[in-house]
């Protein structure tokens, strides 16, 4: 299967055998197909929905047109360069503004939509450069000086570039970078806590696909030899969206082939039905959104043999254990210290001046009645929510005021209450992303092989959960308990100094919970992170806790060993007493 898509290269060869008219169409439609594939990569694979694709295409076409007409025919090469740099540059600015802070994707879709609205009007009004409604015509074909490609040879070059681009995108989607994009799409918060710079991942894919779309737009202009405001407008943008949706945005070949197929099927229709064409497009679009949002491509993928779409095998090795980290440390052992942590949701104060300290190898259990602020403590420490005030550090490493992924990179690891692993990836791939998240930027992910080393403690969890034999299985096929184990293994895959566990035993059977309890004790003993556990299961707390902190109404009510806390009258009133009545 890996090789089958090279068959696509037969498409450009068509240009040698058909008439000038049809080869021209092959060139144009292949470019449009690749444009749809680029949108699918950004939207379907990475979850970045935007309307900028049509602006990028139009900017590319206008730059080639303007440079070729104003600097002489060879200016078109400069125009192509400008097409890539200009669209890429605008995409960087837009990306930083709209994707830089983990906004919901709706904001970004809207911002890019507004950009399209503005640019379409600018293309009409800025006549000195764009030629207004009339556009720019007589754009030369590819070539040098007086030597220019014929129409069909130009189309052959265009179709080849388009096909190579789609093949390149397919390759990209199978690299760790492409797989990480899918994980970011499905579980952005989780990936952030694994140390992945989520905004940078999104911006990178947006810039990459936009710059490539700019190039395609520029090439397109050498075939049609004409650019007009409709190449940058919403109507054209809608067509690209329709092709992408119909072909399935979660595939690349689907949108590519859909764009080519639909365009050939409707050749001439748009001219003969000119008054009704957009109306028909609009109705088709609404019907697709309402009834067929997944598109046809996914149906095809489902009937392919399973071995054709098998994910790559990930080689998982157990790292050689280091000597215990603080054993030889003469000075004061570093501690995880939280000071005066306060959080408010609106006017509702949830945490008030909470202070905690945990030494390496120590397990601290946070307990308290519902609403006491236990999970809020963990969310605040891992920077998932904003804190009002407070400082927390490990040794002299300060964490407050930093983004979730930076905190993760500095050795604070966290497991969420509900497992939020990427379910359409394998166990091995999930582990690999957890290992690479804090270490590699996206450039490194492009060339990284599917090989990882995980910490011995993570390996022990995999064994306990029976996951070491299921590395190639999709995470979606795991039981709830196994998912909990996988997520715990992911949190421990890299060495960490601080480990935050939010209800690790939630949804586990009694036997699983007992296994988990002994694993937590072992991990604290061997890998020596400072561990904070939020848990309701008193049996588990009794087993693992070195110390217990009781929270009530956002403040620390009591602190001590399990036995001390259990004996505390205030605690019995606030928590254990009511618990005992229920039990």
């Amino acid at each position, binding site marked *: 299967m890996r090789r089958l898509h090279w068959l696509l290269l037969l498409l450009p060869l068509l240009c040698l055998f058909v008439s000038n008219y049809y080869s021209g169409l092959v060139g144009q439609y292949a470019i449009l197909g690749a444009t749809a594939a680029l949108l699918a990569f950004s939207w379907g694979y990475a979850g970045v929905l935007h309307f900028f694709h049509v602006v990028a295409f139009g900017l590319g076409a206008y730059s080639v047109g303007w440079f070729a007409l104003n600097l002489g025919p060879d200016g078109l090469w400069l125009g192509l360069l400008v097409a890539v740099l200009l669209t890429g540059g605008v995409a960087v600015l837009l990306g930083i503004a709209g994707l830089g802070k983990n906004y*919901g994707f709706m904001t970004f*879709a809207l911002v890019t*939509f*507004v950009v399209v609205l503005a640019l379409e009007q600018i293309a009409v009004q800025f006549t000195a450069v764009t030629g207004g409604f009339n556009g720019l015509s007589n754009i030369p074909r590819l070539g040098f000086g007086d030597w220019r490609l014929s129409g069909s040879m130009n189309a052959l070059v265009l179709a080849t570039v388009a096909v190579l681009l789609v093949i390149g995108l397919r390759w990209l989607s199978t690299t760790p970078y492409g797989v990480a994009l899918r994980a970011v799409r499905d579980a952005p918060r989780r990936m952030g806590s694994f140390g992945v710079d989520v905004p940078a991942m999104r911006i990178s894919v947006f810039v990459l696909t936009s710059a490539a779309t700019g190039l395609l737009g520029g090439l397109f202009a050498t075939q049609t030899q004409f650019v007009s405001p409709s190449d940058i407008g919403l109507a054209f943008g809608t067509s690209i969206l329709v092709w992408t949706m119909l072909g399935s945005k979660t595939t690349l070949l689907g949108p590519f082939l859909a764009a080519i197929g639909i365009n050939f099927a409707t050749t001439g229709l748009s001219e003969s039905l000119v008054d*009704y064409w957009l109306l028909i497009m*609009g109705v088709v679009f*609404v019907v697709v959104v309402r009834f067929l949002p997944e598109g046809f491509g996914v149906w095809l993928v489902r009937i392919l043999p399973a071995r054709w779409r098998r994910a790559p095998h990930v080689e998982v090795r157990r790292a050689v254990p280091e000597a215990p980290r603080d054993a030889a440390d003469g000075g004061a052992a570093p501690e995880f210290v939280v000071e005066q942590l306060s959080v408010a949701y609106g006017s509702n104060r949830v945490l008030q001046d909470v202070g905690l300290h945990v030494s390496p190898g120590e397990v601290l259990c946070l307990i308290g009645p519902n609403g006491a602020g236990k999970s809020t403590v963990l969310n605040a420490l891992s920077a998932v929510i904003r804190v009002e005030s407070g400082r927390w550090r490990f040794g002299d490493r300060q964490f407050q005021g930093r983004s979730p992924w930076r905190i993760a990179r500095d050795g604070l690891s966290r497991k969420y209450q509900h497992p939020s692993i990427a379910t359409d990836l394998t166990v091995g791939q999930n582990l690999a992303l957890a290992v690479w998240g804090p270490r590699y930027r996206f450039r490194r992910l492009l060339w990284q092989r599917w090989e990882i080393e995980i910490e011995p403690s993570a390996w022990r969890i995999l064994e306990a959960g029976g996951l070491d034999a299921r590395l190639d299985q999709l995470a979606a096929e795991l039981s709830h308990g196994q998912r909990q184990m996988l997520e715990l293994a992911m949190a421990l895959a890299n060495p960490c100094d601080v480990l935050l566990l939010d209800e690790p035993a939630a949804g586990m059977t009694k036997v699983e919970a007992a296994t988990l309890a002994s694993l937590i004790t072992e991990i604290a003993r061997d890998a020596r992170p400072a561990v904070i556990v939020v848990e309701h299961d008193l049996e588990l707390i009794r087993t693992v806790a070195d110390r217990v902190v009781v929270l009530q109404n956002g403040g620390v009510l009591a602190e001590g060993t399990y036995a001390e806390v259990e004996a505390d009258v205030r605690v019995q009133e606030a928590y254990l007493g009511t618990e005992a009545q229920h039990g």
Partner: protein
Amino acid sequence: MDVVINEVLSILSSAAIASVIALGLGITFRLMGIINLAHGEFMMIGAYAAVYAGAIGLPWPLGLLAGVLAAAVVGALAEVLIVRWLYSSPELSILGTYGLSIVLIQGVQVTLGKGYLYSSNPFPGAIEVFGVAYPIYRLVLIGAAAVLFLIILLLLNATPLGTKIRAVAADGKLAETLGIRSSRLNLVVFTASAALAGLAGVLVGPLGNVRPDMGADYIFTAFVIVIIAGNSIVRLIPAAILVSTVQNLMTFWIDPMVAKIAVLVIALLVLQGLRRTPGEVTV
């Protein structure tokens, strides 16, 4: 001095129009999480209805009513046929309303033609304000916008219906367990938003021309205002004044195109400047 007063009044009346359009957009966004890209087309429907009502001799207030009703009916139909099936996916709801806007523009173009229509001004003439003669109609717009905001805010914050609507906005599923019919309230909110769009369409009619793609002239500004205001309805007012000030002054002194870009840049800067909690879904 006269220039200043004139300019201030222009800015206020532009802000009045823009804020009414943004108000309709804002309530579907704030209360339903829907970004309605067909809002400008609901405006257009309202404007057409008012023009046709005038053409058959109905007085202006009835034309206003016709515009509001026409937009409300189209909006309600759109909600029942399309939008309500897309609530689960904000992404699809954006695309669905986008498709709807194309269908409405093209549908009107095919049936009623591309030609420009003009609606007559119900309050012709000018009145003297601080020594400057200013069109009465634009002053009426400022008053109308203020009254509309007051009504909507009171409705949302001081009536049982408003409480229910805000409950559905906070958590539709939870509200249903309390016996509130989320789907019906969503229909009410979406229809009300469309009616507001229709009203805005009627109001802007006399200021320009009425044509199938007239929504595009206004919707850009309205979206920028909603982006700046985030999910707050009260903040729409300062946002509208800010955007109108920049747009009017730059259009007047420099160039309409530069004004557009400047407004866009402001929206992006505001997005940057607002410290919003990571992961929070806001626009």
